[in-house]
């Protein structure tokens, strides 16, 4: 990801929302990062991925300003902010 800043740090998810009628799925709504609160406005994609026998749920979210990738480790119940991709960096891409 060329316009992304790798972060790879544990974070707190302070609000969630649920989607789906029969089997509602949980999505992060607001996170705290470096004392700042980021509220997501849209979910891009949620996909589970396996790391060995560990199941990690990957969430691609946006707050309208930048795209965020979050990972939730289903074994340790820890949320991690993997990267922030900001369109502002697009100017330096090529």
């Amino acid at each position, binding site marked *: 990801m060329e*316009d992304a800043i790798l972060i790879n740090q544990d974070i707190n998810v302070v609000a969630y929302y649920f989607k789906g009628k029969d089997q509602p799925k949980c999505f992060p709504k607001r996170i705290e990062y470096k004392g700042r609160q980021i509220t997501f406005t849209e979910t891009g*994609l949620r996909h*589970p*991925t396996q790391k060995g026998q560990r199941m990690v749920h*990957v969430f691609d979210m946006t707050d309208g300003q930048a*795209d965020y990738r979050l990972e939730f480790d289903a074994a340790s119940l820890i949320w991690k902010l993997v990267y922030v991709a900001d369109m502002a960096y697009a100017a330096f891409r090529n």
Partner: protein
Amino acid sequence: MPPLEINRQAPQVMHIDLNSCFATVEQQARPLLRGHPVGVTNRITKSCCIIAASYEAKSLGVKVGMRRDEAVRLAPDLILAESDPPKYHYVYQRLANIMKSYSPAVAMKSIDEGVIDFHHTRTYINRRDLSVIGLEIKQRLKDDVGSWMRCNIGIAPNRFLAKLAASLHKPDGLDVINHQNLRSTLAGLKLTDLSGIAERNQARLNGAAIYTPLEFLDAPAEVLRRQVFKSVCGEDWYKRLRGYEIDDQTFNTKTVGRQYVLENSRLDNATICSRLAYLCETTGMKLRYKNMCARGVMVYARYSSGDYWYDKKVFKTTFFSNAEICRRALLLFNRRPQDDYIREIGVSCYKLSPSDQNQLSLLEEVNQEVWLSQALDCINQKYGNFTIAYASAYPSHQMVKQKIPFGSTRYFELLCGAA
């Protein structure tokens, strides 16, 4: 062969093709990329090439296979994204699940396309109009994966015509080809619009004074067989164009292998051998995943000058472990001419047969090899692929990333476990 009429059966085959799959999935995952020209590449380097382009990029002239500098010249605002296999795997699984809910006869042709055969489905589904089912599949894809996902759907009496129908109106098209509109559909196309007809086959057809798909359709089977294709392929094309199914075939795995374009053409011998050892590790993984063992190894190298070298050997005994593949591959690889820089290397195993790992050997060292291999696989399954690997391959682990296997989804589950 007696002349055949055009197949008049109702279309029962549906071809589903995700539009610019990887680029669309990237745009789905990152909403800020939507509406922008996006190119997906396997590794972002100066000389990388585009493996998928969004429709915005395609409208600016960016094509799949184009080099980065050329693509950026055409679309200065092009955003490059590195491919992310687990994401595509998820979308592939969702699509496959949707398709399987309509018929058990589903064949995924590649990572972004599949075929549903409705011939043997339940009466409840068979009574419905396939166009309505097509629209329903489009909506379910949007509901399941995301609102940006689009797919082309083609419905026809056989797989070839269904694929052709799916390519008529991109993106997000839904077309039906049947015996009534076959001629009018072909009349608006060029020979190279037909799947399987590229420059060489076009030249063959032109040699027999066939210049359009309609002339191709009207050509007698004998001409296609004896004059154009000079093989049974001519008859296959004759039937295929008339809507008869001949592509419903599965093929056994003949080879298992891996290749890699070196990140730098000035690498020293030790580093190149490490890259080869890594390729052997993944080849061994694939082999055991398919529960097979091999007797033959082939290695190749492509040089900076464009020259190509390969060597292969069939051994008396079968093998399946990473160490054995690596040992035998290096044996051949060390015979290569060393007067030029290498640009690409590859290894593959052939002469495959079902695995004999469960057979206890009289030779203790053979049993030890089996047990070691099983123990390594067990650890890697638990903690993720390449948690434990041979030291010779280890330096390449970070450099050679697992990428998308085009054309086949045979090892998808295995490769996505490597995340």
